[in-house]
């Protein structure tokens, strides 16, 4: 008998609560701003948090209230920003498309290792064993893939122990840059194609011992650049995106082959 009672009582309780909630949903229905729903439709929906709001819904609500600019969603691109601007009735300011970049070329073939790390697959764990890296170069990418785990768009991969960005898939949300415990991953404007794939600020002689693909600060690129766009600071070449014309002259001059012109 108690089985029947149990089923009946719990079933009845469930039905009553269900009915109450259904009624309550009708009675306490709150009109959501239709603009908010329309804006939400335009977004990528990955909830990457690149805009700085809690998820796509949070951003859509902020846009609908007029608190957020229309072009904060890098993941859904400029077309979506234009659509959102149309919904909100304002002109979209152009969101420059950003793409992640890993300024390190120290893959397993060229970089000397500090120790053979066999612990958990996590950059933060590998950083704890002194020197902030498993490679001899303290500036190098550890390659345990925290950025790969953070990427929701399958655009990050570890190739030979260094993170590589798939530029065709990267939407520039910056999740990888946040996940990188060494702040290696940077967001660059997509139009900046000529890059220095090294971040070592060690002196040239030290770099020579540690990594075959490290900037030694030889200043050749600085001298050769026709636009005065490259400067060596702290033994590391830096490209000024304002002055760089993407001519790629420096790519051929680099003695260490670490200045590259990215294709896509």
């Amino acid at each position: 008998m108690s089985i029947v009672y149990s089923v009946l009582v719990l079933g009845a309780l469930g039905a009553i609560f269900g009915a109450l909630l259904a009624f309550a949903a009708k009675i306490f229905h709150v009109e959501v701003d239709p603009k908010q729903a329309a804006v939400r439709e335009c977004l990528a929906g990955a909830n990457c948090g690149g805009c700085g709001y809690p998820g796509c819904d949070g951003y859509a609500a902020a846009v609908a209230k007029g608190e957020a600019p229309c072009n904060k969603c890098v993941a859904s691109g400029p077309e979506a920003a234009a659509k959102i601007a149309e919904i909100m009735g304002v002109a979209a300011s152009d969101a420059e498309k950003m793409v992640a970049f890993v300024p390190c070329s120290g893959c397993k073939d060229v970089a000397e290792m500090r120790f053979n790390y066999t612990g958990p697959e996590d950059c933060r764990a590998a950083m704890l064993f002194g020197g902030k890296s498993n490679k001899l170069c303290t500036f190098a990418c550890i390659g345990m893939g925290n950025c790969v785990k953070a990427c929701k768009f399958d655009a990050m991969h570890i190739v030979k122990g260094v993170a590589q960005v798939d530029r065709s898939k990267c939407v520039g949300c910056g999740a990888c840059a946040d996940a990188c415990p060494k702040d290696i991953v940077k967001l660059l404007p997509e139009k900046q194609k000529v890059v220095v794939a090294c971040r070592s600020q060690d002196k040239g002689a030290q770099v020579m011992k540690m990594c075959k693909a490290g900037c030694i600060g030889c200043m050749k690129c600085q001298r050769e650049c026709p636009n005065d766009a490259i400067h060596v600071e702290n033994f590391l070449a830096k490209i000024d995106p304002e002055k760089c014309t993407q001519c790629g002259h420096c790519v051929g001059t680099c003695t260490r082959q670490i200045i590259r012109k990215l294709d896509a």
Partner: protein
Amino acid sequence: MTVTEYLSIAIGAILINNFIFSQFLGCCPFLGCSSKVETASGMGLAVVFVMGLASAICYVVNEFILVPLGLAFLKTLAFILVIAALVQFVEMFLKKAVPSLYSALGIYLPLITTNCAVLGVVLLNVQNGYDFLGSVIYGITGGLGFMLAIVLFASVRERIQFADYPECFEGFPICLISAGLVALAFMGFSGMKIF
């Protein structure tokens, strides 16, 4: 029950048998929502609110439905059902009627639907044989104890950010260690007898 008994329930729930530090209920939001005092107090407020309401309604369900039908063994199941429905209902009601409170409680209200502290308080009410008023007092003061614990701990965590501790403790480890120390401080109340 007498006034002194109610008082001893209240003080017991806040300090002596604190839900987090001596009963280890609700540890998940305690660690998850304690990075800032502001969010911690939002969470605490939501817990006080839901614990009080759940105690009242679960007492009624237990006393007038389950016990007369000899189905007291179903109380865990029934209480989960009641709490889940209640939280949903309260959320809808607040959204419509008191939007300011709704936005203050924010995301924390639906989060505590499945909180063990809320389920714990209603089960303990039955176990301890409290009457209606006793249950409600135990619910509300249990929530206040939770709020006290989480706000205290959040302010500790805010200070930890500027403290100089070994690098390998960064993040959760140092947080768990300090939680243990705060719990140890609350051990000072254990075994105290009121009235």
